[in-house]
C-alpha cells in the first residue's frame, strides 16, 4: 500500500505545478490592484465590485449562462433520439455509427469552427444564432456518446419484461429506458455545459466583435488591456460558477441513483 502511494508522487508534483500554483497566482492577482507586485501585496475587492457593479459585465455573464444552457438543452433534444436510434442497431452497425460520430472529433476544433464561419457567412443570422449553431455542432458528439453508452449498458430483458406486463412502447420508454439513461444524460450535461460556458474561440470566430462571452472578457483583459488583476477576478468568478454547476449535476446524479 505504501509503495502504491509513492507512485502517486509524480502526479502530486504535476498537480502542484500546473494546477495549484496557477490557481494561487490567479487568487493573488484577483485580490490585488494593477501595478501591485506580489511582494507588496495589497488586498482589495475592487476587481469584484467592478464586475458585479457593472450591468454590462452582468449581462455578459447572463448571456454566457443562457447560451450554454440552450446548447445543453438542444444537445439533449437532438442527442437523445440519435443515441436511442443507434443503440437499436445491430452491434456491428453501432460500432460503425459511434466511429462516424467520433470522426469529426479527430479534427481540430479551430478548423471546424473556421469552416462554419465560411458557411455561416452566407447567411444573415444573429450573432447568437451563429454561435449557438457552432456550439451545438461541436459539443453534440459528447452528449450522444454518453447517452448511447448508458442505454446500451441497459439489460434488454427489462424491455421484454415491460412488454410482457402489458406496457406499450411509449410507456416502456418512460418507465424503463429513460430512467436508466439518466446517468448518461447527466455526464453528457457536464461534458457540454462546462466547455460551453467557458468557450471563447467559437464566439470569437462565429459571433463577430459585438458578441462577447465571459471567456472573451477574460481574453480581452489579459491580452488587450494587460489588466491581469481584473482578468484573474473574472477567471475566478467563472471557476466558481463551474464548481457550482458541477456540484449541482452531482447532486442530480445522486438523486437519480436513489430512484
Amino acid at each position: 500500500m505504501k509503495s502504491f502511494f509513492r507512485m502517486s508522487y509524480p502526479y502530486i508534483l504535476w498537480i502542484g505545478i500546473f494546477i495549484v500554483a496557477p490557481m494561487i497566482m490567479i487568487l493573488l492577482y484577483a485580490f490585488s490592484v494593477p501595478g501591485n507586485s506580489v511582494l507588496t501585496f495589497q488586498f482589495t475587492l475592487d476587481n469584484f465590485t467592478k464586475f458585479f457593479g457593472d450591468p454590462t459585465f452582468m449581462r455578459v455573464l447572463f448571456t454566457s449562462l443562457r447560451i450554454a444552457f440552450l446548447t445543453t438543452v438542444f444537445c439533449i433534444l437532438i442527442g437523445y433520439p440519435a443515441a436511442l436510434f443507434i443503440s437499436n442497431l445491430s452491434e456491428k452497425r453501432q460500432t460503425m455509427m459511434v466511429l462516424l460520430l467520433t470522426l469529426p472529433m479527430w479534427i481540430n476544433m479551430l478548423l471546424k469552427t473556421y469552416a462554419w464561419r465560411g458557411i455561416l457567412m452566407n447567411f444573415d443570422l444573429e450573432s447568437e444564432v451563429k454561435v449557438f449553431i457552432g456550439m451545438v455542432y461541436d459539443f453534440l458528439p459528447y452528449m450522444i456518446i454518453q447517452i448511447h453508452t448508458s442505454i446500451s449498458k441497459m439489460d434488454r430483458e427489462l424491455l421484454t419484461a415491460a412488454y410482457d406486463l402489458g406496457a406499450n412502447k411509449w410507456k416502456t420508454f418512460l418507465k424503463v429506458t429513460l430512467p436508466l439513461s439518466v446517468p448518461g444524460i447527466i455526464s453528457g450535461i457536464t461534458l457540454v455545459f462546462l466547455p460551453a460556458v467557458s468557450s471563447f474561440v467559437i464566439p470569437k470566430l462565429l459571433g463577430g466583435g459585438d458578441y462577447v462571452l465571459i471567456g472573451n472578457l477574460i481574453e480581452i483583459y489579459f491580452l488587450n488591456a494587460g489588466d491581469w488583476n481584473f482578468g484573474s477576478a473574472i477567471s475566478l468568478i467563472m471557476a466558481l460558477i463551474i464548481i457550482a454547476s458541477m456540484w449541482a449535476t452531482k447532486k442530480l446524479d445522486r438523486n437519480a441513483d436513489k430512484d
Partner: protein
Amino acid sequence: MPSLKKLAALFIALSLFTLPALSLADEILNVYNWGEYIDKQVITNFEKEYGVRVNYSLFSSNEEMYTKLLSGASYDVLVPSDYMIERLIKEDKLQPLDRSVVDNLDNLASGVQNLDYDPDNTYSVPYLWQTVGIVYDKTRIDPEDIEAQGYAAFLNPDYKGHVYMYDSERDAFMIALKNLGYSANTDKDEELQAAYEWLREMDKAIRPSYVTDEVIDSMANGEKWMALVYSGDAAYILSENEDMGYLAPKEGTNIAIDAMVIPANASNPELANKFIRYILEYENSLMISEEVGYASANQQVLDELSGEGGTYEGNEAYLPRAGYELDEMYHDIPESLRSQYSSMWIKVKLHE
C-alpha cells in the same frame, strides 16, 4: 517479445540523440514578427547566404508579443510597434544595436527618421510603417463627399449597415479623439468620456460590423461601402478592387512604425545584427514591401514601388502621408488607462 521492446528502446534512444544533434548543426536565429508581414523568400535567402537556420514565429498583437517576452521566451529579433518599443526601452528589455554591423541606415525614409521613441536608432531600426485610414467604395460614396466629412462619416446614418469598424480599442478611440480635436494620446478624463460618447453615437448611427483581418478580403470583394483599415491592408484592397479609394482624414491619423529590435536576453545578438542589416538592404526591403503592401522604411524602395512602373503606382494607400501636422504616433499608456479603454470599448460594441 523482448527483442521488439529492445528495438523500440534503441530507436527512442537514437532519436533522442540525433534530434538535438540535427538542430545543433546550424546556428539558429529566433525571429518573432507579425503574421503575413514578410516575403518568405527573404528568410530562405538569408538562411542560404549565412548557412544558418531561422526560427520564424508570429504574433498578432504587441500585447501578445509583450506577454510572451515577459514569460521568459528568448528571441533574437522582434518587430514591435513604436509605443511598445518605448515601453521595452523604458523597462530595459532591449540591447543597443551594433552599429558597426548595422551600418546601412542612410536610406531611411523621411517619415521614419528621428522618431520620438528612439531618436538616434540606438535600439531600433524601422521595418515597415503605415497610417490608419478609410477605405471606401467610390461607386457608393463620392470621394469629395467623404473627404469633407472625414471621420464624421462614421456618424452618418446614410451609411447604416454598410460599414466595417476595425475591432481595436486604441484605433477606434483615436478616430473619435481626432474628430473631436483632441490628441490620440490624451489622458484627460473628460476627453476620453467625450470620445466614448462619440463612439456610442457611432455605434447607434451606423451599426458597423466589428471585424479584424477579415475586413481585407471583404472589402476587396466590395461587400460594404466603407471601412476603417491600416494603410498597408488598404494598399492590397485597392490593388484588388479598382472601385475602392483610400482617405487619410483631414483631422489627422495615427502613424504607426514597426521596427526591428534585439531583446536584452537574445541568445544570438551577433547574428541578429547581421539579420537586421540584411533586411535593410535595398533588394530585400523591396521584396518585403512589395509582398505585404505596407510602406517600406527605405526611401529608395518607396520611390521605386510608388513611382512610374512600380507595383503600387497610383495606389493612394501605399505611400503614407508624411509630415502632416495633425498626424500622431501612439505613446505607451499606463495599464489603468488601457483597462479603461477596454471596458469602454466593450460597452460600445455591446450597444450599451
